């Protein structure tokens, strides 16, 4: 996993509501606590910004893969129809890029989609054999978990627990990996 958290001791605040957890992130950060990550059953808009995660660069990857697709299609059609085996069909030129627009488009989309999804899986450390480290199994159902790595914080465990509870955590658990 990209956000590896092995050999650590974590305090996990469990929240019941997405609005509460979003507000709690701001409060906990304000109190000087460093948050490891927040886990939720669905995307919460603004959460990544509140946590200070950098903007994803998947769009750049998608563009580069898309361009690769276009160039592949251009090279394929040029090599086959323009160079290796020129064919004149219906009086048309053997190579005219206009007529290959469907090929360009389809290969652009195909390679862009596959490349971007592959990038997504790799950047998240995802794969069929990956065993996720779950802080709480209910985060894929109806709960929201805020994980705080005690090794990364100088504030005491009980103080962090208090901050979490004060910011709306329904329960606070200790999780050791």
């Amino acid at each position: 996993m990209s956000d590896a958290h092995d050999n650590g001791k974590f305090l996990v605040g469990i929240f019941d509501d997405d609005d509460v957890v979003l507000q709690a992130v701001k409060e906990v950060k304000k109190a000087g606590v460093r948050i490891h990550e927040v886990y939720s059953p669905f995307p919460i808009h603004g959460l990544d910004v509140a946590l200070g995660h950098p903007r994803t660069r998947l769009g750049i990857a998608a563009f580069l893969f898309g361009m690769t697709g276009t160039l592949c299609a251009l090279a394929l059609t040029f090599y086959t129809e323009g160079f290796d085996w020129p064919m004149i069909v219906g009086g048309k030129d053997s190579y005219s890029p206009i007529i290959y627009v469907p090929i360009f488009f389809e290969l652009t989309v195909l390679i862009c989609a596959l490349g971007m999804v592959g990038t997504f899986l790799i950047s998240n450390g995802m794969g069929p054999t990956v065993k996720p480290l779950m802080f709480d199994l209910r985060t894929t159902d109806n709960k929201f978990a805020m994980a705080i790595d005690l090794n990364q914080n100088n504030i005491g465990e009980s103080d962090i627990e208090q901050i979490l509870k004060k910011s709306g955590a329904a329960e606070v658990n200790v999780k050791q990996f």
Partner: protein
Amino acid sequence: MSHVTSAVRTPLVTGGKTYADVTEDISKQVEGNPTREWTIAFTIAVIVLTYGTACLFWTWWEGLGVWGLNKTVGWAWDITNFVWWVGIGHAGTLISAILLLFRQKWRTAVNRAAEAMTIFAVICAASFIMMHAGRPWVAYWCLPLPNTLGSLWVNFKSPLVWDVFAISTYFTVSLVFWYMGLIPDLATIRDRAKSKVSRYIYGAFAMGWNGSAKTWARYEYMSLILAGLSTPLVLSVHTIVSMDFATSVIPGWHTTIFPPYFVAGAIFSGFAMVQNLVLIIRVVFKLEDYITVEHIESMNKVITLTGSIVGVAYLTEFFIAWYSGVEFEAYAFINRATGPYWWAYWAMMTCNVITPQLFWSRAIRRSIVWTFVLSVVVNIGMWFERFVIIVTSLHRDYLPSSWAMFHPTLFDISDYIFSFGLFFTLFLLFSKFLPVVNMAEVKTIIKSSSEKLPVSVSGVAKGERVANPTFNKNVE
């Protein structure tokens, strides 16, 4: 606390559902034993598939002579079925992609089933391409591969080769889009699994999903780009399918209106099929709170719109056939309406142009029974549309001496039945082993589009519907 609750919009999720209810209601049929209805339906589908497969193998063993094709009508049910199935496959990606870009929240309840329908419909469509090629074992000849015959490549100028690229890209991207949408829900099933085997299988397919904020942010960004890619893809696929006809010189095919007309027709039939499937799903799996009358009505509005576009296209074709002054073109259209296949033409007109207009009535649009019946009618009509385009244009050649009629044989019919067996077998397997409604996406709209707020937020009592007097005013 910034959820918008509009008083003028009707709720998309009813029954005062909480996040836990969503998981429970939708995971139920995946985790439980198959129901009696499912078992009966699956058994019938497998029997039909077995019969169809036997007929299909006989078709390949004997050759395409077992079909009713002749020298004049060289394409008939095979291409009719292909275009029909590809058309049906358009609604899924449209609901997922175009409605996502338009921020239509009602798509969340039906997108999963619609996407699954797309995948299976495209598989059925591809099977007819394989069938009509006659020798499916050399289907790879369509691909641009180096070969032992020297510098011999596929003809990239041919719309049939464009089709290979379009359909295979559409299938791959739709499959990826569908699968990526499934991952968070597969993780939910994984984390709820009681048996080791389920945990292992769903865990492998969930790819180690953990629902972190960083993953969700990337996931949403990826979904948006996939939607942006899929939107023109949906339009391109049926445009290219229409070019299989439009680039020819056959009267009745050689028209510039084909691309938009085919796309509208595809969405029309695709939505009708989605209606048929979700109307059954909502009853069998007791999902009436998620797939509500609002959803049914929204889809009926799309059917009315696209049906009307198709109607205008029919009239435009007819007008242009006369206005162009091309006598062959004019004859082709008069022959469609009054010639030996007049019944197919008028079946098409009745099913596609006249009956969908009943949806202008609010009562009919919101009626489950009317919706189901009219959706079946639309699908029949759209099959006839493809039959009319293909067979009526071919059966009257430029040479009257080669005029001929097409009569389907048992194998034409059986191979069509095969596709139904294949489609419903796959769809029933999907509905048993995967969540038919996108749980993660439905949870995102629970607060803003639900009948009740599930959890008390700053003074709003649990379970209370927030009727906000001011449109788009935030609930504090």
